[in-house]
């Protein structure tokens, strides 16, 4: 690797936010659009991407039976827009501050990082998802350029 910035692409899939229970799709928060998917054609069809999920805080209720807000991420993909029917990866549920990193090998054009925040009362989770993509191409050209 000669130059880090030249070899990598950075995409913030979920900007850091404090959110209640719900399902959050990639690029659907902050000022991003609400497409709920990433078109890898916009990013030179990366061959691999690091999916970095960072949990900053997860509320825990002091009420019996001490429900805990949790976060779980899943990677979906599809060959057509709006039809991401393939579940490629399910991350472990986590609820303590920390980080999960997964090297994802892309096989379909459209990708979504779905994040599910669960709890039984009004508890919040602070989290963010960053994608780091390589710039190697695949497809009809058959070589990197």
């Amino acid at each position, binding site marked *: 690797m000669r130059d880090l910035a030249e070899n990598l692409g950075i995409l913030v899939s979920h900007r850091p936010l404090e959110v209640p229970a719900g399902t959050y799709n990639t690029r659907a928060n902050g000022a991003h659009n609400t497409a709920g998917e990433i078109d890898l054609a916009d990013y030179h069809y990366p061959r691999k991407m690091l999916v970095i999920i*960072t949990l*900053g805080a997860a509320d825990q209720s002091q009420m019996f039976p001490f429900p805990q807000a949790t976060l779980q991420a899943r990677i979906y993909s599809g060959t057509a827009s709006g039809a991401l029917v393939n579940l490629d990866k399910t991350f472990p549920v986590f609820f303590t*501050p920390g980080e999960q990193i997964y090297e994802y090998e892309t096989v379909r054009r459209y990708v979504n990082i779905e994040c599910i925040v669960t709890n039984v009362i009004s508890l919040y989770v*602070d989290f963010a998802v960053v994608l780091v993509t390589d710039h190697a191409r695949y497809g009809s050209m058959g070589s990197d350029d």
Partner: protein
Amino acid sequence: MRDLAENLGVLDAIRPVDSGVAEYNARSNGDHATVDEIDLADYHYPRKIMVIVSVGELSAGGTLDIDIESGDTTAALTNTDASLDQMIAAGVQVYEYKPTRRFINVEAVVAVDNVTYSVTLVMDHARFGNMGSDD
């Protein structure tokens, strides 16, 4: 690049939290240590680091300023190597940092009102120093 994960290291310098007006230093939130610095010896002396600052939400008037500091000895980070543009809206800044000293800190200053943000570092695994080659 043959394998992305083998070539890169990832460190969540500041985890995403709704943060009040204050100064925040690398690795000082969440369950991380409170040393306020990163010893690059723990990360194979990366030659370059991508500093990824992401802001998700700002309360009215809230601002975020990021400085990258470094030093040759622990607890003496007297050099300011980079000052990123002040962030006043949700968005992302990515900066390629070339460290030249062993200890670094990413200092974030939240002013006026709360900002929800995070700082992630992506490092290469090429070494520098006495060995003079990658391994």
